[in-house]
C-alpha cells in the first residue's frame, strides 16, 4: 500500500449516491399528486460540478391558483376539522419517515445545494426530523401556546423559502403551520428544489390528506404570484431583505398575517478572557459553516484589540486545515457556492473590500475546475464604515474589526441595519449576560455559535425581519386568539363571587 504524501490528504471517502432514485423530471405537488406545470420547466444542477440533476416544473399563476384552491379545500374539508391529536399523528409519521430516509435526503441536499455531506447528514436532516417531532407534540396542546384557550388556525399559508437550508427551512415553515391546523402552499428556491420534491414523496408515503401541503417550484414570479394570491391568509418568507421589503409592501392592508426572516450581519464578539481555542472553533463555525450561506452567520468578528494578532494568527492556522471540495466526500468541510450568481456577488463584495483598503487573506486550498467555489477568506483592518462590514456577503468571507472596551463592542455590534444574531465569547458569566442584554439581536449565542433547536425561537430585529420561528413563539405566527365570548368575559366576576 502506498502511503499518501500527507496523512491530512485523506484518501477520498465519497458518500454513495446509489441511495437516490431520482426521476428525470419532477412536476408540481398539488392536491397530493405530481402534476405538470404550465410554465417553462427548468433544470436544477449540482453547483459542485455544474452537471444536470433533473428537470423541474415551473408553476405559473394558474398553477398557483390550483395549489391555493387545493389547500383551501383541504383546510375546509379535512385539516381544520381534524383533532389536534390526529394532526400530531401525521406529523410524527412525517418525522419518522424523514429519519428513515435521512441518508437519501442528505445526499440529495448536498448534491443539489453544494453543502458538505457531513453538514446535511449531521445538522440539516436531523434538525428537520427534530422540528417535525417538536411541533407534532404541540398539535394537541395549542391551548398552552400562549394565546388563550381554543386558538384557531389562520387558513392557507403561503410560504417561500431560500436555497441555503432547503429542507430545514421547509421544516421550519411546514411543521408549525400544520401543527396549528393550517394548510400550506410552499415554494422552494429555484436552485434547490430537489429535497422538497423528495419530501413530497414522503408526504405521499405518510398518506397526508391531499392538499394539506402543496409544493410549487419556480422562480421569483411564482413566489410573487403565491404571496399576492387573494385567497391566502398567511405569508411566511425567508430570504433577502430586498424581497422581504417588497412582500411587506404588497401584503400591507390585505389582512394577511406576515412573518419575515431576512438578512443579517452578525457580530461575533471575542473578549480577551475568552476560551481561545473554542472561540477559534466558534468563529470558524460562525462564518464558514455552510460556506457562510447562513442568514445568522457571524460575518463580523469583533475582537478585543489586545488579542487581535493572536486570534488572527490562530484563525489562519485553523483555516489552513479546512478541506474544500466534493460536497459528497465525508471529509469535506467547505462545499460549493450554491450558484454562479451568488459566487459573483461574493467576488464583487470581496473586491470592494480589498479596494477599500482591507487586507485580504485566503486559505491555501486547491479550487476544483468545474463548479462554483470560493476559498475561505479573512479581511483584517476592516472598519465600521467598510462596505464588507455593512453589507451581507452571504459567503465564506469574514470581516475582522477590533474594539477596546465592552461599551465599544456593544456600540459596534449594534451599528448595523440588521439584528438577527450575535455571539459573545468570554469566560466571565456576568459579562456575557450584561453584553447580551445590550445587543439588539434576536438570537445571542454565548461561547458557541450557529446552534439551533426546535424549542428555541429564532428571528430578527430591524431589517432582519419580524415574527419568530421555533418554540412556542413560532406557533403564534400560525394562530389567532379565539374571539372572546361573552361568557368568558364574565368569568372573572363569576370567580370573584365564588371566592366570597
Amino acid at each position, binding site marked *: *500500500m*502506498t*502511503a*499518501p504524501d*500527507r*496523512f*491530512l*490528504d*485523506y*484518501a*477520498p*471517502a465519497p458518500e454513495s449516491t446509489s441511495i437516490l432514485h431520482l426521476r428525470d423530471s419532477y412536476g408540481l405537488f398539488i392536491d397530493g399528486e405530481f402534476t405538470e406545470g404550465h410554465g417553462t420547466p427548468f433544470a436544477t444542477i449540482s453547483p459542485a460540478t455544474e452537471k444536470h440533476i433533473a428537470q423541474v416544473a415551473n408553476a405559473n399563476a394558474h398553477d398557483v391558483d390550483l395549489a391555493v384552491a387545493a389547500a383551501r379545500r383541504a383546510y375546509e374539508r379535512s385539516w381544520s376539522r381534524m383533532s389536534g391529536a390526529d394532526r400530531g399523528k401525521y406529523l410524527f409519521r412525517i418525522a419518522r419517515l424523514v429519519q428513515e430516509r435521512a441518508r437519501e435526503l442528505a445526499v440529495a441536499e448536498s448534491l443539489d445545494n453544494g453543502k458538505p455531506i*457531513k453538514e446535511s447528514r*449531521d445538522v440539516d436532516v436531523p434538525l428537520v426530523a427534530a422540528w417535525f417531532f417538536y411541533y407534532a407534540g404541540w398539535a394537541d396542546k395549542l391551548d398552552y401556546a400562549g394565546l388563550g384557550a381554543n386558538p384557531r388556525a389562520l387558513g392557507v399559508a403561503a410560504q417561500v423559502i431560500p436555497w441555503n437550508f432547503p429542507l430545514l427551512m421547509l421544516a421550519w415553515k411546514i411543521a408549525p403551520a400544520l401543527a396549528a391546523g393550517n394548510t400550506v402552499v410552499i415554494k422552494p428556491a429555484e436552485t434547490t428544489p430537489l429535497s422538497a420534491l423528495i419530501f413530497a414523496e414522503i408526504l405521499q408515503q405518510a398518506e397526508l390528506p391531499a392538499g394539506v401541503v402543496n409544493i410549487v417550484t419556480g422562480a421569483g414570479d411564482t413566489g410573487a404570484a403565491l404571496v399576492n394570491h387573494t385567497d391566502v391568509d398567511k405569508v411566511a418568507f425567508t430570504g433577502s431583505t430586498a424581497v422581504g421589503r417588497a412582500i411587506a409592501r404588497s401584503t400591507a392592508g390585505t389582512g394577511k398575517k406576515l412573518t419575515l426572516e431576512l438578512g443579517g450581519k452578525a457580530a461575533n464578539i471575542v473578549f480577551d*478572557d*475568552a*476560551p*481561545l*481555542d*473554542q*472561540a477559534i*472553533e*466558534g468563529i470558524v463555525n460562525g462564518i464558514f459553516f455552510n460556506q457562510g450561506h447562513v442568514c445568522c452567520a457571524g460575518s463580523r468578528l469583533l475582537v478585543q484589540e489586545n488579542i487581535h494578532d493572536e486570534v488572527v494568527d490562530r484563525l489562519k492556522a485553523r483555516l489552513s*486545515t479546512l478541506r474544500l471540495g466534493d460536497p459528497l466526500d*465525508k*471529509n469535506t468541510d467547505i462545499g460549493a457556492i450554491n450558484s454562479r450568481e451568488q459566487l459573483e456577488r461574493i467576488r464583487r463584495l470581496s473586491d470592494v473590500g480589498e479596494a477599500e483598503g482591507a487586507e485580504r487573506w485566503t486559505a491555501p486550498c486547491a479550487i476544483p475546475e468545474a463548479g462554483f467555489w470560493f476559498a475561505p477568506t479573512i479581511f483584517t483592518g476592516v472598519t465600521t464604515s467598510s462596505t464588507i462590514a455593512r453589507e451581507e456577503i452571504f459567503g465564506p468571507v469574514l470581516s475582522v474589526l477590533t474594539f477596546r472596551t465592552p461599551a465599544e463592542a456593544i456600540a459596534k455590534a449594534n451599528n448595523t441595519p440588521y439584528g438577527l444574531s450575535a455571539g459573545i465569547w468570554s*469566560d466571565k458569566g456576568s459579562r456575557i449576560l450584561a453584553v447580551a442584554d445590550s445587543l439588539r439581536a434576536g438570537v445571542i449565542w454565548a*461561547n*458557541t455559535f450557529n446552534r439551533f433547536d426546535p424549542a428555541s425561537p429564532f428571528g430578527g430585529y430591524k431589517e432582519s425581519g419580524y415574527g419568530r420561528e421555533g418554540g412556542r413563539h413560532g406557533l403564534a405566527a400560525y394562530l389567532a386568539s379565539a374571539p372572546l365570548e361573552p361568557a368568558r368575559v364574565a368569568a372573572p366576576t363569576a370567580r370573584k363571587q365564588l371566592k366570597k
Partner: protein
Amino acid sequence: MTSATAPTASVTTADAPTVLAPAERAIQTIGGDLTEKSLRLHLEGLPGVDAVGLEARAAGLGTRSIKTSSKAWALDTIIRMIDLTTLEGADTPGKVRSLVAKALTPDATDPTTPRVAAVCVYGDMVPDAVRALGAAHSAGRDDGVNVAAVATAFPSGRASLAVKLADTREAVAAGADEIDMVIDRGAFLSGRVGLVFDQIVAVKEACRRADGSYAHLKVILETGELNTYDNVRRASWLAILAGGDFIKTSTGKVAPAATLPVTLLMLEVVRDWYRLTGERIGVKPAGGIRTSKDAIKYLVTVAETAGEEWLTPSLFRFGASSLLNDVLLQRQKLTTGHYSGPDYVTVD
C-alpha cells in the same frame, strides 16, 4: 468542567516565597525569579477551556472518514506508536518475555508488520524486558524497541520524594529508555503547584544516566483525577515547564482514562508550546483506547491540531495493550479483503 476555579489554597507565606528548582524552560518562560507564586500566576493566566466547545470539536474530529491508502498508513503508524503495556501485580518474567515477543513480531503471518515503539512495564521488570529484547533493544538507537518503566510510586504517586527518585534511578540503571512518572495529584488539587513542579524537576534529574544522557520522561497527569479541563491545561503546562518530554493522560488505573477531548486539549497545549518556543513535546493518551477506529480518531486529532509533524513515535504514543490486536485484525482485513477472528492474532 467549565469552571475556571484554580487550586489556589494559600500555602506560601507572603514574606517567604517558595523558590522553585531552576528548570530551564520555566526560567525562560516565566523569568529568573521562579517562585511558587510566579508559577501559579503564570498557570492561572492561561486561557480557560470551554468544556462544551472542546467536546464538540473532539466529536467533530471523530467524524473524519479514513479509507483505503490513508487507513493502511494509519494502521501501520498506530502500531509504530504503541507502548505495549503490562502493569499488573501478577506480572512475571514469563509474561514480560511474552509481551516482548509480541512487540517484536506483532503478526507472525505478515513480516511487513512494523514493531511497536516500546514495551511498558513496572520498574522491577525492566531487567527482564531488556534481556528478552536482547539485540532488539534500541538503547538510544533509532531502530529497535524501547523499554519504558512506570516509576515514582505508580499509579498513586503517594510516596516520599526519596522513594520516587530511588524508583526512577533503579529503572534507568536497569536499562529503561523511558520513564513514565505520575504527578502528585493531591498536591496539585490542594494548590501546591510548586511541590508538583519541584518533584518533576527532581525526577527528570534522576533520569540522567552515567554518561550524561537522559531517559525520556513522560509525565502522567492522571486527568481522570484532575477532573476539570482547566486543571488539565494547567497541569500539562506545568509538566512541560518542569522539563517533561511527553505529557501523558493516565495511568490506566483510574476511570476515565484517556478521552479524545482530553487528548485534544493536551495537543493544543503542545502546539501552543511549539508556537511559543519552537520546541516539540510529545503526547501519550493511555488507557481505554481499544479499537483501530478509536485510535484513528486520535491520529486525525493529532494531525489537525498539532500537525503532521507529531505523527511519529517520538512525539505521539498510545499506551495500550488490547489495541494492538484490533489493529492487526484490521490490517489483515485490508490485506486479504476479509475479516478473520480473534484466534488469528496472538494473545500476549
